[in-house]
């Protein structure tokens, strides 16, 4: 790792990162503030949800909507918070190399006496650190927030759910980094990662309805991160391992490509 580059990457991204953290805190606070109403209307809501198709109940984790764990799982960990992690991850990935090339700063950065591999590993480590920090922000917000609305969830489970989401952020950071390393264009890196995330979420969501999607569910990063409800079960070792291995493979491909590619003017 190259410390000055690590610190500079954080400095460059600080505004966006702080914005996403505030956004996540706001989402959590709003959802928590609504929960007392949900709990007090449990009977009516349960009847209402029972009328939903089973597949939709599964997609949005609404089977246990009126319990504290079920509510947070449905409102935060099925879509909103994964989206925040993916947005942060994809943005940092697109900035890693593609932004440096587009702004031509790659001409100075990659002509320093530092191997391209070290430059990219430093950028990856900074993105990884950002994901961990975001997971911790979400953990502490929930850890404190649930006390105000009388929800009881073990801190380890909140931590597990937060880090499950960060697996998604990290893998789509790797995807954006790979596209950036291949094409050197920020729009392709960001657009490619977001498009793949969208496709992955669609396949994951529709798997209960579409048999073909269900058959490939075990290869879907959304299944690895969200397939088991970490807020209830904790981290799933098998899925987490798959996610980490896939992420490392994509980062490895990024390094392989960048080491060999021309940096054109």
């Amino acid at each position, binding site marked *: 790792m*190259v410390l*000055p*580059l690590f610190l*500079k990457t954080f400095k*460059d991204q600080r505004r966006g990162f702080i914005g996403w953290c505030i956004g996540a805190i706001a989402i959590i606070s709003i959802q928590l503030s609504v929960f007392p109403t949900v709990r007090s209307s449990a009977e009516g809501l349960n009847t209402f949800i029972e009328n939903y198709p089973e597949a939709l109940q599964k997609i949005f984790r609404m089977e246990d909507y009126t319990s504290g764990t079920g509510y947070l799982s449905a409102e935060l960990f099925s879509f909103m918070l994964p989206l925040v992690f993916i947005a942060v991850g994809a943005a940092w990935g697109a900035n890693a190399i593609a932004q440096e090339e587009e*702004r*031509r*700063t*790659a*001409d*100075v*950065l*990659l*002509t*320093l*006496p*530092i*191997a*391209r591999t070290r430059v990219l590993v430093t950028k990856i480590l900074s993105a990884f650190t950002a994901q961990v920090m975001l997971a911790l922000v979400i953990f502490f917000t929930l850890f404190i927030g649930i006390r105000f609305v009388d929800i009881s969830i073990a801190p380890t489970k909140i931590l597990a759910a937060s880090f499950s989401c960060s697996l998604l952020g990290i893998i789509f950071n790797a995807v954006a980094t790979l596209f950036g390393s291949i094409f050197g264009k920020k729009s392709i890196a960001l657009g490619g990662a977001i498009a793949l995330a969208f496709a992955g979420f669609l396949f994951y969501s529709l798997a209960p309805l579409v048999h073909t999607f269900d058959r490939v569910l075990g290869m879907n990063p959304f299944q690895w991160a969200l397939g088991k409800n970490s807020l209830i079960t904790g981290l799933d070792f098998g899925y987490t391992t798959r996610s980490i291995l896939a992420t490392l493979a994509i980062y490895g491909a990024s390094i392989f490509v960048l*080491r*060999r590619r*021309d*940096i*054109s*003017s």
Partner: protein
Amino acid sequence: MPVPAISLKGLTKYYGDDLGVMDVTFDVFPGEVMGFLGPNGAGKTTTMRVLVGLLKSSSGRARIQGEEVSIYSHKMRKEIGYLPGSPALYENLSGWEHLNFLAKMRGLDCTDEIRSMAQRFDLDLTRHIKDLSKGNQQKIGVIQAFMHKPSVLILDEPTSGLDPIVQREFSALVDETQSRGAAILLSSHVLSEVEHLADRVVIINAGRQLLVDEISRLKRRTIRTIDLYFSSPVSANVFSDVHGIKDVQASGNRVTCTVIGAETELLRVAVEHGLDSVQTHESNLDEIFFSIVEGGDRNGSSTLS
């Protein structure tokens, strides 16, 4: 013969099927400034980007201080100061933050060098780069290339955007750097600048190297126009047998001709016919450059003897 600080042999670069440069071969020795001339798209920037490890060569060899250059080898880049052709600056940083960041990335403390060069170029380091004029941004690029006292400098259009006063300061910096033994490869469209700074020039066009030569020799070997003034009218036929002259025109006491190479024979014949005075119109480097590029001959033989 000292080891060349920069050595290119048969360097060829293709972008897919498109030719970048072909068979570029020259050396730059320690303490030498080499001008690198050519029109836009000639292949100057491509050659320089191969030398600093941004591009892979398709074939041929590029060495810096005797070490093979490639995009994989990064250690020899300690020896290189590189100024890219287009501004490559972190615009969200101040000049000081940008330069200090790059120094730290090299594991160096260049505070004194940065401050002294900023003072020399009258540059305010506290302002954000995005708020600076193109000329001031170029000054930061120049400082970034020189601040770590490299033994090899690769400067792509270094004076682009600099005003004449700063250009003079830049020339002085190049002279000082050359005096401490650094090798400098400098591309430019401002041909007169190369004439003042460089010892030798490489001329390249459409990806192909046309010649490498000392500027002084280049100028000697090129076509000059000479006016000869006699005490009485002289016929143009007098000079018909003189080797290396053409376009002889006589008008009263004046004879005008163009000379390629030595003038000795011409002057001997002129003296025999009562030569009073001589006026030589030297080709400047711009004329030489254009005559070679337009000639397109690999050895420049269309214009050179």
